[in-house]
């Protein structure tokens, strides 16, 4: 059950990872990241190459941080045993059935066999995998592999779940299905409490997430609720009756969306042209202000 979204669950302090060497496979560095993970859904957003994947992998224990710590609150234990990581394209062991895979996972994570069996049955039912539960992993299609990865997370008794761009390749209906699964799942007893989700879709962040972490060049630029991210742009956002093509002023933005004949503008221009009327800020505006504010 997702409990009070105000309570912090995990404290990350001055987390740093500076990989050496060059090449394509090199991870992006993460520098001095300090933040709290709260219960509920937290989006991790930022430009390409900001270090989102590195951050998630550090938290998952797949990389060893060069400095810094990740501790649970309030008991100050290491997080590694209580975290589950779902990559963008989860795989499945080709010769192992989903049921067999989940069973091994549960037992390795210290469940007793009888408990594991019933929990696996629930997980398979919840993720709609009963029909393929006893087929070898190589026959699963990508959607089923994703469902299997979700079931695996649930079987592991994780406290925190990390998703790396889970919905990047999905169309809206499948994306909806993903969020429905998460919702259903977070209402089960004994389910993970915090969900960290890397995403590039700010509309999705606005629609489903409680909190947001903005990352740029390996540093945390913003942490807080989605609503307060939007408010970073308060006083700078307007509706304009005509399109604004002003490339000279850095803070003028032509938004690509518009409603009817109005165009959304984010501008520091003073005085404001008389035809512009104020509008409520969106997380998109807040995101842009957060990143640009630093650049200048």
């Amino acid at each position, binding site marked *: 059950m997702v409990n009070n979204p105000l309570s912090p669950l995990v404290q990350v302090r001055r987390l740093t990872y500076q990989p050496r060497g060059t090449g394509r496979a090199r991870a992006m560095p993460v520098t001095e990241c300090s933040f709290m993970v709260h219960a509920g859904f937290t989006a991790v957003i930022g430009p390409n190459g900001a270090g989102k994947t590195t951050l998630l992998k550090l938290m998952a224990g797949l990389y060893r941080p060069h400095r810094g710590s990740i501790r649970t609150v309030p008991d100050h234990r290491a997080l590694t045993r209580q975290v589950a990581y779902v990559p963008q394209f989860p795989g499945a062991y080709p010769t192992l059935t989903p049921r067999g895979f989940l069973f091994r996972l549960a037992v390795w994570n210290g469940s007793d066999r009888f408990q594991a069996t019933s929990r696996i049955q629930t997980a398979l039912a919840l993720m709609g995998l009963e029909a393929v539960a006893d087929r070898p992993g190589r026959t699963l299609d990508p959607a089923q592999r994703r469902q299997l990865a979700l079931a695996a997370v649930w079987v592991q008794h994780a406290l925190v779940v990390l998703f790396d761009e889970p919905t990047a390749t999905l169309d809206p209906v499948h994306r909806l299905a993903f*969020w429905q699964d998460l919702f259903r799942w977070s209402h089960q007893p004994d389910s993970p409490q915090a969900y960290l989700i890397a995403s*590039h879709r700010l509309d999705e962040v606005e629609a489903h997430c409680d909190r947001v972490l903005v990352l740029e060049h390996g540093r945390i630029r913003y942490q807080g609720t989605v609503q307060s991210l939007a408010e970073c742009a308060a006083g700078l956002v307007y509706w304009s009756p005509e399109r604004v093509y002003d490339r000279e002023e850095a803070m003028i933005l032509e938004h*690509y969306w518009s409603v009817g004949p109005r165009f959304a503008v984010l501008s520091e221009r003073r005085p404001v042209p008389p035809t512009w009327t104020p509008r409520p800020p969106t997380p998109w505006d807040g995101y842009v202000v957060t990143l640009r504010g630093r650049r200048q």
Partner: protein
Amino acid sequence: MLEWEGVSLGYHRTGRKIFEEFSLTVEDSTVLLGPTGSGKSTLLASIVGILPEVNGIIRIGQRPVGRGGAAGRQWASYVPGANLLPRELTVSEYLTEIGRLDGMSSASSRRHAQAVAERLQLTESLRVRMRAVSCATKRKTLIAAAVLKPAEWLLVDEPTSGLDPEGQRLVLTLLQAESRHRGVLVATRQVAETAVFPDRLLLLHDGQIIFDGPCPRLAEGAQGHVFRVPQKAVGEAPSDRWWQPMPGGEIKIYRQACPPSAIGIEPTVEDGYFWALLNVESKPDLERAATDSPEGPVEAMTSTNDPPYREKISHGQ
């Protein structure tokens, strides 16, 4: 103008026809929206002649694209959905070569490549070989290359796949600017992108156009059918597919009539999209149910003392 007249399209390999006797006219810049597998890419590819089996006539600016789409390739510039690029060329070499192949002089092609690279903030990676660049850079490079060609139509399949929010904005702004002096047809599955050309949106589902009109009207279509269920009343999640979680434990549901303890809310374009798909996908069930029992489905869809919202919207599923 792009025209499809009585077109049937399909692939050799599967033998499945995606479009049967399909007709459509696109005069101005338009967004083609639809779920995966609805035929968006096929429609785009049919203009440039990538598909083997085409019956019917496809015209681009009154000219038939012809067998193999030779005319289509001449008058349209196409960005495929996949990022296939020569690995050993640098971004700048690729863009310049594309300009040369389209008949520009070497100097002007270099100048144009530079200009479009600046607009897409590609200048930092101009000297990097394609095998070493990120997929976001590849996407931008492909789009830059297509924009370089002074064709009458720009056909873009999934313009922003793999791009970060800033990259999405750059690309969509560029497409908007391009639409001032040529036609742009964007195929996308992201509802948020329909706002690039809000004046015309085509919603494609299984090879059929199920909505054609300005973007806000899609949202209006769901007026009175989108409801917010407060956290206290949520209980168990609905068993059908047409709901979505909102922040703070509430959920949003799509229904014909307002269920008890739900509050009507203003639909967004995305809500309009889901409502349109819901109507199309539940239609066969309704028709089947209608033949079984005349009042059954009507009652389920409209009665005010509704079944609890967690029940399925139609019978016979």
